[in-house]
């Protein structure tokens, strides 16, 4: 809005110029500012815009002899293959269900930790716990896959050789038993994300006006009542925003979590295969550009729709928090 006013201000000063002349005048006047943006613009072009235009390969039968331009168009054939491959339902179900479970589980834990850490008497201790809790966030998924492997290794892992031994149970071949992996993945994801998630809510709680609590104490409200009637309602807007924002990524999955932590074990695909791991495998291991690009395009379009929907939902609740 303000930018527009200034433009009009300029045009008033030079109202004899035509629109095009004004445009070139402004272009020249601000040429240095525009030039500053060139490096990032080139990066965006190579990194984001060329791949956007590249989605047309989903409608082609790419072969390396003809290259991407001369390969024949095949219409929706790749999509037909994808839909009839039988994998679509499995990868869509896994992707969406894991996203939803992670969202609810991490949110609940993060908020509980934030509320509890805020009630601790020793501030120094609280800072100390926070340092430990966010540590996993700084580790790569490769490192985390090593950590999980230390627990789940079939012949030497800590769970088999110590925990199950103590309980007198048989060893489990973790990397070939799909039944456990929904829990393992949820746990690993929470381990990495809950601490850093709590930080956001800790900051939000720190911003609550202390007068509310003082008034509540005078009225004789218990701690529980304060939490449920002051703390949680005060951070409700940010909880809603964070939730809606993660709804925008419901068709995306953390490739590292689903590929590297189960170590790409084929026996686990029924419960670990998501859109991202499927696209990777079909592209890099089966070399099927057609089907993988079709799956990737479906994901992009669904993702686009979700972002638009979630943003309009955010807009309805709180205009300031909307991204656009």
């Amino acid at each position, binding site marked *: 809005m303000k930018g527009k006013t*200034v433009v009009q201000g300029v045009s008033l000063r030079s109202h004899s110029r035509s629109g095009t002349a004004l445009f070139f005048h*402004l272009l020249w006047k601000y040429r*240095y*500012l525009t030039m*500053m*943006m060139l*490096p*990032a*613009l080139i990066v*965006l072009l190579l*990194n984001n815009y060329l*791949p956007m235009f*590249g*989605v047309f*390969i*989903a409608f082609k039968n*790419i072969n390396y002899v003809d290259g991407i331009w001369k390969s024949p168009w095949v219409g929706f054939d790749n999509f037909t293959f994808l839909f009839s491959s039988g994998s679509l339902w499995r990868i869509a179900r896994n992707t969406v269900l894991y996203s939803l479970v992670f969202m609810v589980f991490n949110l609940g834990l993060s908020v509980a930790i934030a509320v*509890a850490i805020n*009630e601790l*008497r020793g501030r120094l*201790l609280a800072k100390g*716990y926070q*340092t*430990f809790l*966010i*540590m996993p966030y*700084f*580790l*790569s*998924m*490769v*490192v985390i896959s090593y*950590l999980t492997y*230390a*627990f789940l290794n079939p*012949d*030497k892992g*800590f769970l088999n*050789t*110590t925990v199950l031994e103590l309980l007198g149970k048989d060893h489990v071949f973790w*990397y070939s038993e799909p039944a456990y992996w929904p829990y393992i993945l949820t746990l690993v994801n929470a*381990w990495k994300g809950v601490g*850093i998630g709590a*930080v*956001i809510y800790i900051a939000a709680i720190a911003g609550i006006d202390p007068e509310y609590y*003082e008034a509540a104490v005078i009225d004789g409200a218990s*701690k529980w009542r304060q939490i449920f009637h002051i703390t949680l309602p005060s951070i409700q807007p*940010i909880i809603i925003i964070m939730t809606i924002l993660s709804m925008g990524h419901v068709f995306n999955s953390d490739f590292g979590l689903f590929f590297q932590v189960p*170590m790409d*074990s084929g026996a686990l695909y029924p419960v670990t295969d998501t859109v*991202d791991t499927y696209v990777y495998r079909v592209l890099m291991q089966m070399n099927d*550009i057609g089907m*993988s*690009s079709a799956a*990737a*395009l479906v994901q992009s379009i669904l993702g686009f729709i979700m972002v*638009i929907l979630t943003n309009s939902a955010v807009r309805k609740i709180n205009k*300031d928090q909307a*991204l*656009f």
Partner: protein
Amino acid sequence: MSSRRENKITPLTNAVLNAGFILLSLACVLPVILVIIVSITHNDSLLDRGYSFIPEKFSWIAYESLFKDYSTILGAYAVSIGVTIAGTILSVIFMALYAYPISRQDYPFRGIFTFILFFTMLFSGGIVSKYIVFTQTIGLLDSYAALILPLLIVPFNVIIMRTFFQSTIHPALIESARIDGGGELLIFIRIVLPLSLPVMATMALLSTIVFWNDWFNALMFIRTEDKYPLQYLMMRVLNDVQFMRANVQLAAQNPQMMSDLPNESLQMAMAVVGMGPILLVYPFFQKYFVKGLTVGAVKG
């Protein structure tokens, strides 16, 4: 002050909460400690009792053999350090140079350039299209640029920077500098940057973590072994061993093949070497991350 004190939880509740947080903190660090202990466990103890928090015999042999064949691991370290330094510097400079013009209220093209940035957050071509573009169109297969380029611009962080410039740098300051005859680039370097050091530091640290921890782009684009960054080398080591072990199990448990596999404390020593630098520095920089995260969460 007294009313605040009355509002504190009871000592008993406090003790229970503290106990809970001690358990949670342990849950966060114990996996890391287990890996460190396994990396210095003697092979006899490993064969005898598996991975354990309290092994009977210790040994530094894993680290010795890791650094005896140092060319691979030092090479991977060098690639990771180089990519992280180059990537972080370029990333912060490019993002700041983009964020500054779109933060200027008088810049007439800020709307269109904000949209160009913003649209990349809405729609992505997807990984297949990107793979084809990178390998076929701009020829980045097996080049270090393929490790840097994809992570250079984080649109969300550019928007945080823009918001920071808008709220911190007063337009009158820029106006007066211009009257004094300063060019745009000079104003940016002499006036805007010194006032923006906190946000620059936050962005630099976020970038450092992202570049150091990245292995996905190496998985997609790097083919030659001496170009592997550390995280990707670690991934290959773990997966190759797991693949062999899985096949051994299927092939009726041949003990001879099992004993030929790389020592397990060696693998874990690699994990320690890979996560070491981050674990050593993050406690000192965590407040910047927290700042960056909370700024981003409050308003993008």
